């Protein structure tokens, strides 16, 4: 879908909210066309880092750079998909998808592009529906359609499946895997769900508890399209990831209860 081919580099990023250190010395690379998944215990700063990469949070120190060609039809190189969808309730499905195209594309091109991404995400029949009329899974499809409509150079996905029920999550995860594999767009994907991490990631960066540091970056060589939920290698990898973050996750949970 995208002719953009960008690499995202996170260099020595540190962030604190007032006196609370959230991220410390983060160095990461999301290579062009690959999916970098960020996992770690609650409060480790994964979503904050995604906000920094998106340009929505100013880091206390360090920088994020983007290198590589960006296609002429890309309207928003760094494009987010939000956990809570962030749809405008007063706009129809098509209206939400068209929002970032308005003022940037002629009306006919805009309509064509909206129709294209709605078809891609299985939403063509719902173009005129209001967001309140859709299930959580369908709303997130709208969020994805909106993101794809700008022909992103890099997708920034902040726990896009976590607000959905388990069945919808499984279905959408399969679709994500197919979509991301096909599109070849650089993607940074934040999740708590280790199954999502091993299904979607070319690399999985494991964060320590707050202040978040990168403990390890795992490489997964297997092509995304060939990964299956019952693949023993992936199950083993998922277990390995859990072993790495279990103690931190338990400590973070205790911290939340006490704090």
């Amino acid at each position, binding site marked *: 879908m995208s002719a953009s081919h960008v690499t995202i580099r996170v260099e020595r990023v540190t962030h604190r909210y007032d006196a609370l250190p959230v991220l410390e010395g983060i160095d990461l690379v999301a290579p062009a066309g690959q999916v970098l998944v960020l996992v770690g215990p609650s409060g480790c700063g994964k979503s904050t880092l995604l906000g920094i990469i998106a340009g929505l949070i100013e880091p206390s120190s360090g920088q994020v750079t983007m290198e590589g060609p960006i296609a002429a039809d890309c309207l928003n190189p760094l494009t987010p998909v939000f956990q809570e969808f*962030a749809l405008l309730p007063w706009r129809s499905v098509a209206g939400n998808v068209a929002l970032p195209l308005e003022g940037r594309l002629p009306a006919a091109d805009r309509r064509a592009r909206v129709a294209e991404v709605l078809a891609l995400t299985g939403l063509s029949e719902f173009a005129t529906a209001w967001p309140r009329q859709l299930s959580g899974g369908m709303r997130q499809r709208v969020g994805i359609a909106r993101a794809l409509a700008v022909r992103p150079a890099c997708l920034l996905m902040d726990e896009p499946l976590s607000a959905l029920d388990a069945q919808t999550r499984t279905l959408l995860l399969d679709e994500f895997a197919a979509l991301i594999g096909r599109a070849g767009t650089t993607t940074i994907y934040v999740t708590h769900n280790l199954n999502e991490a091993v299904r979607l990631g070319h690399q999985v960066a494991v964060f320590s508890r707050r202040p978040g540091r990168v403990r390890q970056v795992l490489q997964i060589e297997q092509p995304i399209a060939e990964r299956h939920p019952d693949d023993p290698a992936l199950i083993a990898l998922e277990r390995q990831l859990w072993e790495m973050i279990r103690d931190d996750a338990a400590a973070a949970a205790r911290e939340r209860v006490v704090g």
Partner: protein
Amino acid sequence: MRRRRRGSGWLAEPLPARPVPFRARGFAPTNRPLAGAATLIGLVLLWQGLAMAGLIDTRFLPPPLAIGRALAALVRSGELWRNLAASLQRLALGWSVGTAAGIVVGFAVGLSTLARSPGLSVVSALFPIPKIALVPLFIIWFGIGEGSKLATLGFGVFFPTVINTAAGIDALPRGLIRMGQAFGLSRPAILLKIVLPGVMPAILSGFRVTSSIAIILLVAAEMIGAEQGIGAFVLQAGNLYDTENLLAGIVVLSALGLTVAWVLGRLERWLLAWR
């Protein structure tokens, strides 16, 4: 529950099967427009009946039919339209100016750090003042003519509009604004396509309050210094002990309030169809 000992422990006595009672009755009133209309008609009929039976002194409280006749006479003579036109003109102008200024200041208070604290402190200090108390001051400032009446209306409408607009902006999920920024929308586009529609429910619900305030202040201002207008007409009828025309004027004010509420309801249904 009865218990009996069995072996080493206590077990509940088995009871026969019985239906589970429904316990969620009440606390869910529904609208019945016909019942509302029937109540009003019933009250009017009762009023008319009591008057006809001589149980009400009609010099002080004329019956509905007499008020209706007075109203018809006002329509035929054109007096109603002259007064109504004068009132509507003041209402539209005063309310529009106060509302427009209130929305602009409300946006500034809701979105700008520079305007927020100064704006809120001024609004908090001036909002509680009963605006009717300011009418004499406005007459001194703007004269007995239209200026003081419009100032009273505009001032009365301005503060609730500022508060509603700013509160609507505060309640707007910031995630929507961040979404707009993350998709590279310009600041005017975010204001126009995200903030304005997002705050519209609060603004429209404020319209219901401010339109009522405007009608109250309109009548008060017209009673102090106006030759035409429903408020002036009602005062004049009162001075002449003409209770039929006085109550006809009040019926017109009630109808005006109902009409404004109906128009706002239609506007809400049209602008907030997404809800």
